[in-house]
């Protein structure tokens, strides 16, 4: 029997909500690997890459100028010393969280629908963390001294302040980046072997062959591999919760009104997942359209992600309500002033826009299954949520700092063109990396799709 003859099993396959009808091991393998190996560079990809790369160059320019002049080119001042850098840091790292959640938490829950979205969601995590990591480094002013944050026996005889959440952050984010990279790479190994075996060009064969490290799908390999994946999932699930908790400690451990709150850790984690799922949708919807992947990323996937948005969005809404409630319930004049200032002060339009983007628009529309299955509506909602989550971090950072205890120490924060250039530049960095990923690596886990074909047959 020739390898290209259709599998007998394919025809008898019942429809699965997570996979289009009529797929066999061979068809899923060929479809996903051909995007990388056969189709080559498309015009649309090239256009997208050109835009992303131009923005990435803008980022490089902004960073070069920053290193030359210093952080004074940004709008930060006293009292608002954090500004865009921390807003963007929290936003990006939050976006990353959905990738880990999909691949780790849903794996532990044995949710089959994660299998076709986990690969690019993990890639999204990795690139979002890379973008996030830029901001604290650049914000330090002298980024070349970043290694002072790392505990090592130095000639100065000093150590990092281990009681500070900012040092916890260093450990949390670097662990998160490392574990995300490992998880992503481990998931890729069998697929790299698939590409090695499918590649026709010598260079591609050698490159994928080296990366696959000689994977040959032996039963013993699979046993060790599956155990390792399960354990990594078990490790990554508490990790992802801890990372955004530590990020929220950066705020919550300070005494600034609007930051000093015990609801921060759960509400930050929920917000992170909220924005992350929105980003997964922002990426998944164009990908399935341009690469004709509707069989793999089905309506049911979009529907499920819409439900995740609804659930996490409601937790976020609860966070906002409790924040307001406890400000008044505390009876503390600074807390009360902070919340009134947020709603009616100079940044009030930003606050109300945030409520519109995060609560009013998505949490009313997403209840409807017609909207959750409407690709365009879902795509627009995902963009609205990401804007809203960015505004949320802006409100938390800026409105809390700009008017704290002493009116004589109040101030205003206005981002400069360099703030915007750095922020938009990281979006360019993100999409540059992401487009390279979809061009050179399988964007859907091939072996897990074969597994899905196997399972839906039974």
């Amino acid at each position, binding site marked *: 029997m020739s*390898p290209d003859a259709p599998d007998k099993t394919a025809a008898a396959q019942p429809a699965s909500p997570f996979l289009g009808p009529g797929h066999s091991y061979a068809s899923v393998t060929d479809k996903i690997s051909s995007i990388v190996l056969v189709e080559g560079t498309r015009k649309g990809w090239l256009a997208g890459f050109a835009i992303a790369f131009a923005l990435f160059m803008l980022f490089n320019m902004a960073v070069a100028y920053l290193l030359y002049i210093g952080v004074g080119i940004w709008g930060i001042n006293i009292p608002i010393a954090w500004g865009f850098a921390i807003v963007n840091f929290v936003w990006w790292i939050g976006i990353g969280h959905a990738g880990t959640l999909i691949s780790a938490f849903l794996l532990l829950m044995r949710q089959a629908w994660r299998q076709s979205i986990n690969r690019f969601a993990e890639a999204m995590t990795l690139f979002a963390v890379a973008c996030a990591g830029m901001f604290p480094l650049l914000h330090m002013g002298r980024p070349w001294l970043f290694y002072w944050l790392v505990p090592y026996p130095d000639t100065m005889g000093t150590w990092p302040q281990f009681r500070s959440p900012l040092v916890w952050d260093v450990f949390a984010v670097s662990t998160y980046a490392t574990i995300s990279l490992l998880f992503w790479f481990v998931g890729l190994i069998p697929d790299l072997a698939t590409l090695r075996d499918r590649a026709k060009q010598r260079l591609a064969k050698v490159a994928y062959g080296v990366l696959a490290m000689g994977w040959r799908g032996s039963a013993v390999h699979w046993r060790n591999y599956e155990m390792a994946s399960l*354990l990594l999932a078990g490790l990554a699930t508490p990790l992802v919760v801890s990372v955004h908790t530590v990020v929220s400690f950066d705020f919550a451990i300070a005494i600034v009104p609007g930051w000093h709150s015990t609801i921060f850790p759960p509400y930050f984690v929920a917000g992170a997942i909220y924005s992350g799922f929105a980003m997964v949708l922002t990426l998944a919807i164009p990908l399935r359209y341009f690469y004709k992947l509707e069989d793999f990323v089905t309506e049911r996937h979009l529907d499920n992600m819409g439900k995740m948005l609804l659930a996490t969005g409601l937790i976020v809404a609860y966070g906002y309500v409790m924040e307001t409630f406890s400000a008044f319930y505390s009876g503390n004049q600074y807390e009360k002033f902070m919340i009134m200032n947020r709603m009616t002060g100079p940044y009030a339009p930003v606050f109300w826009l945030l409520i519109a983007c995060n609560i009013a628009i998505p949490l009313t529309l997403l209840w409807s299954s017609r909207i959750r299955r409407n690709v365009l509506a879902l795509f627009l909602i995902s963009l609205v949520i990401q804007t809203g989550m960015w505004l949320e971090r802006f409100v938390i950072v800026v409105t809390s700092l700009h008017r704290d205890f002493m009116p004589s120490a109040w101030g205003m924060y206005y981002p400069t063109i360099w703030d915007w250039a750095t922020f938009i530049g990281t979006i360019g960095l993100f999409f540059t990396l992401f487009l390279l990923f979809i061009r050179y690596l399988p964007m859907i886990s091939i072996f897990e799709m074969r597994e899905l074909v196997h399972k839906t047959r039974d």
Partner: protein
Amino acid sequence: MIHRVTDSLNDMKRHAIYGLLAEFENSEDLLSAAQRAHEAGYRGLDAFSPFPIEGLADAVGFHSTRIPLLCLVGGLIGCFGGFFLQYWPNVFGYPLDIGGKPYNSWPNFIPITFELTILCAGLATVLGMLALNGLPTPYHPVFNVPRFELATRNRFFLCIKAWDPKFDLQKTKEFLATLKAKEVSEIES
């Protein structure tokens, strides 16, 4: 463990052929073939599939994996190492009295201890998985069979290695033919 050591030593001896490779069309045939080969007394078995198949590792005689142990050891190293990393500088290396707080203010050390536990456990798991699987493997004889490239697409393979005491080129070939194999090929070593 001993089985694995003899396996690799035997691999190194380089028989003229590495073994025989039988090709199957689906996972059920491969699983039952592996079970029957094991029942027939073959011990130098390996099976290859495009996705993990439940029970296949047991069928070829591999029953337990050491990955959880490695993960635990990594996690413990990270946990104690991480705590010590903070305890030592704060209590001995560079003690600072800040507002009368105790030098060993352990609740403050928990986040970093936790992160390093996860980091070391994760690294141990992944590196352990690669080491136990013998990856990277720059050369492996099964790749000499041209059709083996379908092992990452839609075909399933069973290998009986030549070092197996029961291995006999002709007889093993005949045995494999009785197992619903589509094709049986010799693997050059």
